[in-house]
Structure formats: C-alpha cells, structure tokens
C-alpha cells in the first residue's frame, strides 16, 4: 500500500476552486517533485495534504501506518515570522511537540532527537544563536532540522530554496538528496523544472493540464508535445 494516495482532489478556499482533479500516489522511498506556475495551487495542495485546508472534494488517504502528525513540514518562507526572538535550538526542539503527549516539558530523548537533526543539517554550532540573525540558507536548515525532528518517514518541503543564492541552493538540494538516500520519502515543491528532473523520481505537474507519473514518463510526454 502507498504511503499517500490522493484521488480526484479538487482544491480551493471557501468554495473558490484553485486546482482540479488531482490524483497521485507516493510510495515509500519516492522523491516527488511538484512543479507548476505561481498560483497553480502547489502550496494549497501541500496544506491540504497536511490537513490545514479541507479539499473541496476528493480523498486523501495515508497508508503504511503513517499518521498525519508524522509528516515533517517545511513551510514556504513567507509564512514564517522572520523577526521572532528565538534561538535555533528552541525552534528545532519545537518539532517534538507532538511527541510530548501530556508532558509539559521536553525530555532527554526529545533533546537528543533535536541534537541529531541539527548535527545532520550542520547547524549544531549555531544551536544557541538567534534565528533572526542567521543567513537565509542557515534559516532554511533550521526549519529543515525542525521538520526532520517531527518526521519519521515523510518530509514535505514547500520551495525550500526560494530566495537562496546558487551556491547555497546547491547545498540545500544535496542535503535533501542525502536525506532521501537515507530512506526519507520526499515531496518537494519547486518551480525549477531542471532541478526537479535531476533530483526527483516522480513528477506532479499542476496547472491547466495535470500530469502525474515517473520522471521518465514526464520526459516522454514533453517530447511528444514538442513534436
């Protein structure tokens, strides 16, 4: 059974349709890139998967025992408060919130999990630094570390490299690739088609025509259209 199955999804806000008839599946170990123009509903799709927005119609099913709160989420940049007074560690720790249950405070294992994630993202030395003083790339690593703390098997990344310079962008993609190679299933939004085609295993193209399939099938179809 697939980790995530979407069938005939209609997305939108308060009856206003944003995207129509979207179906796709995500198997464990997949790296799905969602591409499409600005405003085509990519963010809305992610928010619907996470349960932040209700679909107008259609179904989303999680499989393989995956719970909704085990999905790690990296929001699009403009949704975060940049000038918030918080240390890197405080933010990464907050990925543990749903592990807390009835405990009021984080336990040893929560702190260990946060430390491990910061180590993986190469930001352990910044743990006590203020988030708002970091560079854009470092801030994204912090948010990725937080997503990693929250996630067990599936990461959902909404434009993780927007606003970053080319060098930092390449670093970010390589970090994500490493996580994928270590067994994490990925859903990543990007409007950089070249990257999508070099990194992903599957492509979901949103817009007037909706495409879902493997990267190879996507290339075939593009070729077909050109001729």
């Amino acid at each position, binding site marked *: 059974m697939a980790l995530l199955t979407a069938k005939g999804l209609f997305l939108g806000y308060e009856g206003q349709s944003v995207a129509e008839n979207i179906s796709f599946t995500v198997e464990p170990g997949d790296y799905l890139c969602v591409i499409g123009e600005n405003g085509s509903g990519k963010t809305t799709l992610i928010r619907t998967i996470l349960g932040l927005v209700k679909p107008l119609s259609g179904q989303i099913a999680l499989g393989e025992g995956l719970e909704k709160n085990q999905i790690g989420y990296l929001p699009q940049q403009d949704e975060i408060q940049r000038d918030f007074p918080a*240390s890197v560690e405080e933010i990464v720790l907050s990925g543990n*919130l749903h592990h807390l249950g009835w405990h*009021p405070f984080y336990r040893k294992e929560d702190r260990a999990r946060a430390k491990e994630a910061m180590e993986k993202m190469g930001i352990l030395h910044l743990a006590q630094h203020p988030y708002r003083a970091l560079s854009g790339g470092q801030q994204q690593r912090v948010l990725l570390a937080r997503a990693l703390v929250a996630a067990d098997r599936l990461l959902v990344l909404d434009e993780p490299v927007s606003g970053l310079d080319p060098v930092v962008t390449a670093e970010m993609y390589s970090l994500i690739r490493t996580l994928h190679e270590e067994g994490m299933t990925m859903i990543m939004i990007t409007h950089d088609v070249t990257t999508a085609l070099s990194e992903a295993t599957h492509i979901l193209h949103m817009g007037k025509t909706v495409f879902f399939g493997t990267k190879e099938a996507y290339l075939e179809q593009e070729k077909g259209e050109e001729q």
Partner: protein
Amino acid sequence: MDKLIMYLQYPFVRYAIIVGVLIALCSSLLGVTLVLKRFSFIGDGLSHVAFGAMAIATVLKVSNDMLLVLPITILCAILLLRTGRNTRIKGDAVIAMISVGALAFGYLLMNLFPTSSNLTGDVCSTLFGSTSILTLKPSEVWLCAVLSVIVITIFILFYHRIFSVTFDENFALATGTRVDIYNLMIAVVIAVIIVLAMNLVGSLLISALVIFPALSAMRLFQSFKKVTICSAILSVFGALAGLIISILADTPVGSTIVACDVVIFGLCYLIGRVKK
C-alpha cells in the same frame, strides 16, 4: 525612606505591593505572544470591554466587581478571537465596534445611574487606575493572588506549546497540535490578565503594562526563553518602582508604573543600540 517604611507598616500597602508584583508578572508573560501574534488589538479591545463591564458592576453595586467583569471579558475574548479568525478584514471593524461601544455604554451607564457624587472621578479612576490597588478588600486581594498563580502555572505548563503556536501556527497545526484550543486558552488568559491589570493601572493603560516589558526585553535578548524571563523581571521591577514612587511622591499609581515601563523601554532601546 522613613516615609516608605512607615507606609510599609500598613497592611493595605503591603497587599498592594504583593498584588502589584503578581499582576506585573502575569501581564508580562504573554506580552511576547501578544506582540508577535498581532493579538495586541484584541488586548486593546478587551480593555475597553472590561471598562464597560466595570461600569455595569458599579451600577449594579456588585460586591466584588471582578466576579462580573471577569466572565464578561472572557466571553468577549472568545468572541473577538472567533471573528478575528474567520473574517480577516471585518475582524478589525468588529473589534473597534465592540470596544468603542463598550466605552460609550459604560460611560452612559455611569452617567444615568451615578453611584457617587464624584462621577468624573469614578470614570477617571476606572480608565486610568486609581488608588484602588491601595483600597483592595482582602477578598479581592485573594482573588487577584489566586488568579495570578493560575495564570503563571498555565503559562509554565504550556510554555512549549505557546512558543510553537506563536512562532509558527501552521507547523504546529501540521504536527497535530490543537492550535484552536491553545489560541482559545491564550485569549482567555489574556482576558484574565486584563481584568487583573485593571486593578493596577486602569483600563486605558493595560496594553502598556502588557506590551512594554516584552518590547524592552526583545531589544536585549534573542531567544524566547530569555526574552520571557527578562520581560517578567523588567515588568516586576517597573511595577515595584512605580508603586514606591507613587507612594512617596503621591502620584497616581497606574500612570507612574507605565511611566516607569516607558523609561525602562528607553534604556533597553539604547542598550540594544549600543550592543549592536
């Protein structure tokens, strides 16, 4: 100094100082959340509602004002939160309507059913705080103390959740946090704090008491924990200084405390500048 020691011998002065410190502590805790979540408008609206409720309590001659003012303010907090969420732009208008309406009705009620000969004095003391902190009855002191302790306990127990919901509501929601419940809790706690703070500084100055210490602390520190602790300390310090000065110099309690908070903010602003 002698004057201060003499005053400290009166139990009501000691009560006032204990209650003042507790209220200052409470009001500073949620300051950061209020500022950053743009909940401050709710705080402002609520303080006006509290004034209206106070007027009703005065007219009805309720023995303990807070027993009436508290539920009304909490109810309005919940209402404001709801409208503020659902309709983005209209939310502001609703808040303005409720708060200005409450002010007008409050004043009207106090005019129609004057309970004392000194109406302007009554209104003024409700708006700007009076010496009421010095005239609290033991039952009110106890209520204040109990509510303060409840607020502080809730804040400590839910500290990490409040942090997450304040920093990134979407992420918290995505990982299965009941954000709506915590928002409700924050709104109710804000209502309680406002009613408490009304005793100390009056309803027009409440926002200052809540927001200034947080803004000051944010000038000095960069982590949520440090900012929270620092704003608690600054708030308590400001309240103590304000209370003592007002006793010695015979100035109005509320505005003296707020003046102290403003001076502290100015100092923190300068220190923050120099540190950079």
